């Protein structure tokens, strides 16, 4: 590791964003490099100072009252505080995640090349790999289900005591996805529920767990090793549907699952 690399990565180290292997690499470099060691110590002290200073400002009471009052008004009747906000609202929404990107001098390109390999937040990528492996295992070993039944009221209680979450088990037979059972599996070293569905001759594993990686906003579709994955978060749970059916059908599955989850009545 060069000092240039270490200079960027030591921040990721003190911020707890490095995985164990890369944290060790940085520490090894720092142990042999007094200049980087000095920086690491200085930045650690700085973090400490930040952590101790009460820097978060309390919103003034009058602002809180103002916002609470505004939120109590039905949406259609809300008026914006100043004309300027109104004028800019439309243009800015378009840029939702596209804020200003001002280049920086300190080896942005270097940082970009480092980040793919090392940042723990790319965990979702690793989890996607885990999800596919678990899906493949379930197909190969003749161990698709631990509890094999199309009765959702049998599958759901089966998970009791095996997990720290109660996964939603929904029969979607009427919607074209047959519930065939449930299984306990492991993703990223954590026990997860797998709810197994069949679509024609294709198996869909729906993995349900407490959030495993970085939060997802909306639905994230990807393809890993030829399998389609649909990842979304709902009701405080992370859900990963994986199958060899095409992405459109998998999306349909996800939408029907969500719709059924929110449908009134017993589930």
């Amino acid at each position, binding site marked *: 590791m060069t000092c240039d690399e270490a200079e*960027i990565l030591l921040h990721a180290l003190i911020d707890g964003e490095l995985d164990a292997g890369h944290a060790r690499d940085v520490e090894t470099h720092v142990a042999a490099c007094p200049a980087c060691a000095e920086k690491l110590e200085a930045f650690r002290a700085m973090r400490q100072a930040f952590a101790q200073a009460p820097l978060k*400002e309390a919103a003034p009471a009058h602002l809180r009252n103002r916002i*609470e009052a505004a*939120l109590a008004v039905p*949406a259609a009747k809300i008026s914006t505080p100043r004309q300027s*906000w109104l004028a800019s609202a439309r243009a800015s929404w378009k840029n939702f*995640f596209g804020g200003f990107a001002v280049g920086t001098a*300190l*080896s942005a390109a270097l940082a970009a090349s480092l980040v793919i390999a090392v940042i723990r937040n790319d965990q979702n990528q690793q989890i996607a790999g885990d999800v596919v492996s678990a899906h493949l295992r379930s197909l190969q070993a003749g161990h698709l289900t631990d509890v094999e039944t199309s009765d959702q009221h049998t599958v759901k209680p089966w998970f009791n005591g095996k997990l720290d979450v109660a996964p939603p088990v929904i029969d979607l037979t009427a919607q074209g996805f047959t519930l065939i059972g449930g299984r306990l599996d492991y993703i990223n070293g954590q026990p997860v529920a797998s709810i197994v569905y069949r679509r024609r001759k294709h198996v869909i594993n729906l993995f349900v767990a407490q959030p495993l990686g970085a939060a997802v906003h909306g639905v994230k579709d990807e393809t890993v090793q030829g399998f389609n994955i649909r990842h979304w978060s709902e009701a*405080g749970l992370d859900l990963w549907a994986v199958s060899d059916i095409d992405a459109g059908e998998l999306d349909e599955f996800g939408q029907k699952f969500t719709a059924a989850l929110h449908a009134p009545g017993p589930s």
Partner: protein
Amino acid sequence: MTATDNVDGDRARRFRDAALPHLDDVFTLARYLMRNAADAEDAVQECYLRALRHFDSYRGPAMKPWLLAILKNVCVAEFARRSRQPVPAASAEDDTPLEEVPMWQEPQASPETELLRRFDDATVRRLVGALPQPFRETIVLREINDLSYREIADIVGAPVGTVMSRLARARAMLRTAWNAEDGS
């Protein structure tokens, strides 16, 4: 009360429960982005109203980064609007005449900075406030709002690698400013 009012009421209640606990975080970022207290408060209010309007399409468990992303966007839009208009004279109660330098606020040495040797809260706050954008927002999102690199990247609309280099740069600048105060 009509059925629509009921639905709106329930939705607004769910929104309040989810979003109001983050008011201090949103307000703090607004103070660093806008600096003028009145503008910051307007931005926060606009952020909450906008978030309520889009609450139906909100997904995922992390409310705080979502609100901060909206706030950031509100502030950027306001700067964009101002840059299209003749610059109004800075009003007397402005903390800093930020309108003149909306994106890049160069650190300014003032007589009292030289007198401060201890890093009390006010000093830390002032040094952070003196950082140029976008380094200021990156360090605030990390150190004060306590977000992960990934969450910061989503909010500022830049790759994680850019967030990393901005953070490294921001801390290097802070360290220089810190040492300058210490050694004066």
